[in-house]
Each structure stands twice: as C-alpha cells, then as structure tokens.
C-alpha cells in the first residue's frame, strides 16, 4: 500500500500526486516510469515519474483523467492509498551518462505537449542545473491546460508557449514554434527531447529530421506488466521490434514508426470507452436507487 501525501490540481482533470514509495524514490532517475494500480480490481497504469524525493521517500506523478482507471487514480485524496506503485521501470534518460563538462556545452530543446510537461520538468531542472543551455516549448489545447509553466520557466533559458486556440502564446502547433526558432530566430540545438501525445511527437520528429537534430521521444505505449513479460508495449524502431518498457521508454524519434505506435495505442480505446460507459450507467442506476 502506498500512501498519498499530496494532491494538487494542475488543470481541469489534471492532478499531481506525491506518493510514499521509498524503494522507488531511492532508485528513481529522470526518464523512468512507475506502474500504478489504484485499487484491488484495478488496471496497471504506466505513469512517468515527474519528480522524486529520496529523503522523504516520495515520488511525484501527474495524471490526466482519461478512462476508468486514470479516473480512479485521480479520485484518490491525501491520506488514501494506492494498492500498487511499482518501479522505477524503464531506462533512465540517455543524457545522464554525459559528464558535467560535456553538458555545459550542450544546447537542449524540450518540446512537451499536455501532461508531457510533467516528465520534462525534472530533466529540464537537472540539465539547467548542470549549466546546459535549455529551451522549452510547451503546448496545450488552451491556457487552462498548460501545466507547470511557472516552475519550468524558472529552470530554463527560454520558455515558449503554443496553444491550439491562441488563449496563450502562439496560436497553433508546437512545431510552428520549433520551425520559427530554427529558421527565423537562428537557434541551434544539439538535442531535442519530446514528450507528449504520440501524434505531436511524430510531427516534432519529422520536423527535426529535416534539420538533422538528434531527437529523443519518450513513448507512452500500452503496457501491462512493465517488465518485459507481455509485449503489449512493442514498437518498431528502425524496423526492429522493441519493448518500450525495458528497451525504452526513450528512443531515437527519427527511427520510431509513429503511425504503427498510434494505431496500437488505440487498440483498447473502444474497450476503455465501453468500460467507462458501463461505469457511468452503474453510477446512474445507483443514484436512481438512492433518490427513489
């Protein structure tokens, strides 16, 4: 059992949780993820580690309500327990291998969409702290859904914002900003790291390929065990099948077959949707019962 010690609303239906999981906190490194089960009959849901505190033995996750299972995770309150928090899973970010003097000369650009802002935050903080040059593009549907903006702003050189509806920053896509920075603004980057919706990462990868900039994407595939046992998380990278949970989650974005990955991600969409509907119907009936 893993106790929730902090809950914060970051945006409508996006929550941050700090959970007591001392073993996970002790071993966690940027880039890794955990698998969370909210309750006994719950599904195993992979979530990127957004931060961790080794002294307090806590890990931070950021969750968006999407289906039944993420809803259960989001409904938990401070003092409640998740039945399982397993991790840290996957490989730590590649740049952790770089020594400090190399990092000082590196120019990073992070491109994050939606809740992808959460997992980039510890990486941005780490690199900026080591003296690397770090720019960040945050994208969201609207200004309300931009998360961790102030926190990230404090730990990077330049922050750029793009929203679909133009309610903040550039009206349009993160790739518009990316193109602008490179072609019109004369920016040069050695590395791009992108985390967010699969379709966004696909277009970021296409864009940076054009400019020949090394790009890393952190993939949020379907998973069951997270330890290499089932293959639900498989992706094609450079024509070879990889398991995201043990070979990733970070891959060379220019080699990932995003179309296949998007297709696979939707495999259970209908199933999840069905389940949510059933649940709502159940609740609905309950209420009828209660008020009758």
């Amino acid at each position: 059992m893993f106790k929730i010690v902090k809950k914060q609303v970051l945006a409508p239906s996006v929550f941050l949780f700090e959970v007591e999981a001392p073993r996970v906190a002790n071993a966690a490194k940027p880039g890794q993820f955990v698998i969370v089960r909210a309750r006994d009959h719950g599904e195993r849901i992979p979530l990127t580690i957004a931060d961790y505190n080794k002294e307090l033995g806590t890990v931070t996750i950021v969750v968006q309500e999407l289906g039944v299972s993420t809803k259960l995770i989001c409904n938990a309150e401070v003092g409640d327990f998740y039945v399982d928090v397993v991790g840290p899973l996957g490989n730590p970010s590649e740049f952790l291998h770089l020594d400090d003097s190399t990092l000082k000369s590196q120019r990073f650009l992070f491109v994050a969409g939606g809740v992808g802002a959460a997992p980039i935050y510890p990486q941005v903080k780490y690199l900026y702290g080591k003296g690397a040059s770090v720019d960040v593009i945050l994208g969201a549907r609207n200004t309300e859904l931009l998360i961790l903006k102030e926190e990230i702003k404090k730990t990077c050189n330049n922050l750029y914002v793009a929203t679909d509806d133009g309610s903040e920053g550039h009206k349009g896509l993160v790739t518009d900003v990316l193109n602008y920075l490179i072609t019109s603004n004369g920016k040069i980057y050695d590395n791009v790291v992108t985390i967010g919706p699969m379709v966004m990462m696909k277009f970021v990868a296409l864009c940076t390929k054009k400019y020949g900039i090394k790009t890393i994407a952190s993939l949020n595939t379907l998973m069951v065990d997270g330890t290499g046992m089932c293959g639900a998380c498989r992706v094609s990278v450079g024509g070879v099948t990889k398991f995201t949970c043990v070979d990733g989650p970070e891959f060379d974005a220019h080699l990932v077959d995003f179309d296949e990955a998007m297709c696979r991600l939707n495999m259970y969409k209908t199933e999840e949707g069905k389940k949510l509907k059933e649940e709502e119907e159940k609740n609905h009936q309950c209420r009828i019962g209660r008020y009758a």
Partner: protein
Amino acid sequence: MADAKSRVAAKEQAPELRVKNFKEVAMGYNEEEAIAEASRCLECKNPRCVAACPVSVKIPQFIKHVKDADFLGAAQVIHEDSSLPAICGRVCPQESQCEGSCIRGIKGQPIAIGKLERFVADWSREKGLIVNKTTVSNNKKVAVVGSGPAGLSCASDLAKFGYNVTVFEALHVPGGVLEYGIPEFRLPKSIVNYEISNLEKMGVVFEPDVVIGRTISVDDLMAKEGYCAVFIGSGAGLPKFMHIAGENLNGVVSANEFLTRVNLMRAFDSDYDTPVYVGKNVVVVGGGNVAMDAARCAVRLGAKVTVVYRRSEKELPARREEVVHAQQEGIAFQYLSNPVQIIGNAKGWVEGIECVKMELVPSKDGGRNSVVEIPNSNFNVSCDMVIMALGTSPNPLISSTTPGLKVEKWGGISLSDPSGETYRKGVFAGGDAVTGAATVILAMSAGRKAAKAIDEYLKGISCN
C-alpha cells in the same frame, strides 16, 4: 468398479458447460474412487514410476496408504519429496513421467498417479492436516527473487531450516506462472493462495511490487539490506515472436499478454478494470501448454479457435489431457502449418494469417523429427486475432544488473554447481531462469535443492 486394465474415470465438467465458465474442468476423485484406483497399483519392487519422477516421490508407498484409506499417511509420504502436490497433481506432464513408465500402461491404462496425488493433497488441504513445522529463527536473512514454484519451494525449505526469508516479486501478486499463466479452470487460484498463506504462517515475508534490478539490485540486497544469500527464481518470462511481417498489427498478442490480462488481471470478470480484446476467429500459434491455455481461454471468452502448429498431433508438447480437453471444447487444430506473415486491413487490424504447409523429416540419429516447408503450399486462414505462443526466454533484467553473474548465450543463468550455486558468491538460482521454460516440478525441485545448498553455504560463514 473398473476392471484392472482401465483406470477409474474422474468426473469432469461437460464440454458444453465448461466453455462458458472458468471453473475447474477436472473434478478429481472422491475417497471411494481414489481407493479403487489405488487398488490397481501392482506395488512393483523396482518401481519405474519413481525413477521417472523428477523428484522421486515414493509413489507405490503413497498409493499403498490410499489403498488402505490412510490418506494422512499418503500425504506425509508425498510431502517428503514434493512441496506442491496439489499443484503438481494437476499440471505435471504425467504421461511422459510417472504414468508414462507405469507397468500397467503396457497392456492397459497406467495408474492415474497424478489424480491420486491431487486427491491426497486436496484431502489433506481441506482437512487442514499438513502443518508445516515452524523452526526457531537463526536470524540469518535470505532473499528469494520471484514467487513461482522455484521461489516458493526454496522459501519454504529455507523457512523450515530457520532462516528469515523475504520473497521479492515484480508483479502485484505472488505465484509466478501459477498465477498469471495457468488458468483458473486448470489450477484454481485458491490452491496457489493456500500455499502462499502457508508460507506466510511459517514467517516468510512477501514483498510484491519489487523488480529486482530496477527497484533494488542484488548487490544492494546483500550489501545494504543484510541478506546473507539470494536465490534467483525469476523464471523465463520474455515472450518470443516470429519476426514475420504484420506481427505488430492490432489484434496480434503474445500468449503471455493474453493470459496475463485474463488470469492475473481477471479481464473476463466485469468487476475488474483491465480490458482484453478477444476476436471472433482466433488463431493460436504453437503447440505447448501455453498455446492450449490461450486457446481454451479464448473459447471461454466466446471465440472460435484454431491452433496452428508446425508439426503433427503426435509431437504436440502440451500435456495430453490439455490437448484432449481442447479438442472436446471445439478447438480446431491445423497441423503441419507454419505462419509466414500476418495480413492486416487498412485500419491496422489483423484480418488473416498466411501459412505454409510443413513436412516431417525423420532425423537420421533417431532424435526428434525435423520439419521442412513444402514449397508453394501457402494458404490463408482468416481471423481477427492471432495469439503467439512460441515459448519464452529468461528476462535479462537481473543478469544485466548483477556483476559476477554469468549467463548462457540464450540468457539462462549459468550455475557453477548443479546444486544451484551461480558464479557470484552467495547467489543461487534455479527454475526456468536457469533451464529456460520447463515444468513446475523441475522448478520446485531446483528451488529445494538450492535451499539445501544455501543452508550448507551459510552454515560455513558468519553473516550480518
């Protein structure tokens, strides 16, 4: 009563009923039936069944006790050599072990040794009669990694020797393949849970949600947490794929994924949140127990199932009983066929599988027949789901994070001594992690052997 040539039939759920539920298929003997079956035993002086049992259970002795209606006596005999009889009685490949060499089998049916073992184990469990002795603790800590049959039996013996044992398990429930792989209708989870709660009563501590090599390393278990020795029973969990075109289409899954969703996550029960996709026409590729289990789960979830296997019926590696049960449940078998590619539709979902016909070629040295493709014999089977049950290999997570451990080319942990010692001092291993995918009984016996070796090792050193 049966004539001496044929065995006493054990009751089973009728096929048309059982394809609609996940309850156990074989119902087992009652006392009269068990005694009648036991009475067929010839009590051979040089019992071939014992020689063919991987752990040499004293079979004629326990059967004699059954014959005399002394079931507790029978249970005690079995327990000397097997720590998981209720499980082995249900899942051992008896036809190629004890029953396969029973003299009775030459002119008739062999004694139903597995069913008798199961009867005795169930009887003593239901009566609560096998009580494991608790031993005074010697205050030495031993870590067991993995809670499959290897880990459970190692933990059990270590606890009996007096060690403080903690079992670390990556998944959220203990049991290994017994829990996530073998379905409820073949091995009720209540039996696995009973074994686990017995260990807990003996003082064994289970820590789920710990992935050794990620959450904590073997090194840190020993250096920082004070474990004097470590047993690795992490199994062979990595699913193999064929590396053919179309394998990443939607609707193509490993048997491990399908079985995990169904058995561990209970996707068949609407009270649980995990979804599972089940096609209307399912092709299962493979011929082992895993393939049979996947096929039979799919049938129970409403699918029409075809098993595609490279060789012929005779070579099916699955337990005979599972094959018979699968056939009774309406599963079709397409023998001597091998997939060459999986065909998808415009939406990225599987809609068929292309296979090629195969031919058996007798091997020159009398070993297993080999198979070759028959050129230009390709044909398509239409389906909306493909389950790959091609076998598994050991997960590299532990071997790649434990300095000093040696592995075989195919990933199995190398032993420096058959007792279970590895090349890393204080670290022992056994079960599928060492042998590759094998059987419950072999994993159990490896776990017990290693427990003995660990005891020998720790007697000679001071630790803590």
